[in-house]
């Protein structure tokens, strides 16, 4: 059964890399937004394989349900398209100093990370590892979810008030940034009738 899970992992990993590539190279911002939505769904499937069902639910509902709608609305209201890679050939695509430096950076970071992983792999004590463990029973999954909510109430009880204050501040701040006071002359006739006060009518 774990071969099946490994196969799913590799498929989802390739899917994630493809969607990440598409967010860089499509023309319109809306298209980049929906490739990002597919990326977020792929990450949530990886959470499910890593035996955390509740993170799967949170990722899908918060990212895929909330932030996606936010991104789609903003992409429609500030629509401005541009192209990342100009030209058809490989060398036409890698033009510009910024692109070259950044391509160098991505290769450098990868080449640094993978040997570090290989070196420190021997120090990982993977006896208790349950990633891709197909012998894990359903009662243990129930217990994990119960422990998660229990820890949010007792040990980490500052998380939910902290997040709620942060999100409240973000909500009020973003409304204040975006709000626009209309002059009465800019409105159409029907809206003028609705919002006209007695002082304006004089």
């Amino acid at each position, binding site marked *: 059964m774990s071969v099946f899970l490994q196969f799913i992992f590799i498929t989802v990993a390739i899917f994630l890399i493809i969607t990440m590539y598409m967010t860089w190279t499509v023309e319109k911002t809306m298209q980049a937004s929906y490739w990002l939505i597919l990326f977020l769904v792929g990450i949530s499937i990886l959470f499910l394989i890593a035996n*955390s069902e509740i993170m799967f639910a949170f990722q899908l509902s918060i990212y895929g349900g909330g932030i996606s709608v936010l991104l789609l609305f903003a992409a429609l209201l500030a629509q401005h398209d541009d192209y990342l890679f100009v030209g058809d050939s490989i060398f036409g695509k890698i033009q510009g100093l910024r692109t070259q430096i950044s391509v160098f950076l991505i290769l450098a970071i990868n080449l640094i990370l993978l040997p570090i992983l290989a070196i420190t792999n021997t120090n990982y004590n993977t006896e208790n590892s349950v990633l891709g463990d197909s012998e894990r029973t359903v009662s243990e999954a129930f217990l994990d979810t119960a422990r998660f909510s229990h820890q949010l109430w007792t040990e980490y009880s500052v998380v939910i008030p902290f997040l709620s204050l942060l999100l409240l501040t973000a909500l009020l701040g973003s409304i204040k940034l975006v709000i626009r006071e209309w002059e009465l002359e800019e409105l159409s006739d029907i809206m003028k009738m609705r919002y006209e006060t007695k002082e304006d009518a004089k």
Partner: protein
Amino acid sequence: MIDATWYLGLSGFLFAGGLFGVLTQKNAMRILISVEIMLNSANLAMVAFNGMFGLGIGNLDGWIFALIVIGVAAAEAAIGLAIFLSVYRNFGEITVSNIFTLKEQEVAN
């Protein structure tokens, strides 16, 4: 068993990809999208670490921190998009290299 290094390697690769997007994109919306990619790859590493060390002994710190990161990413996306909308109203575009009022510079193509 899925080896833990698979998760960490994938997380590193996606993080580098998000970083590439932040450094090369000219559209502010796409920069925000690449930042979201980076945050998600960090979440993936967090959940993988929890599965490696914590689930066997009932320790769920990784999941809780991943939840905090998701909340912070939501707040940051909201404020960032509000700023982008204000900038779009005033300048007519979101290309980050063209938005300057503090110094004399030609408009880059």
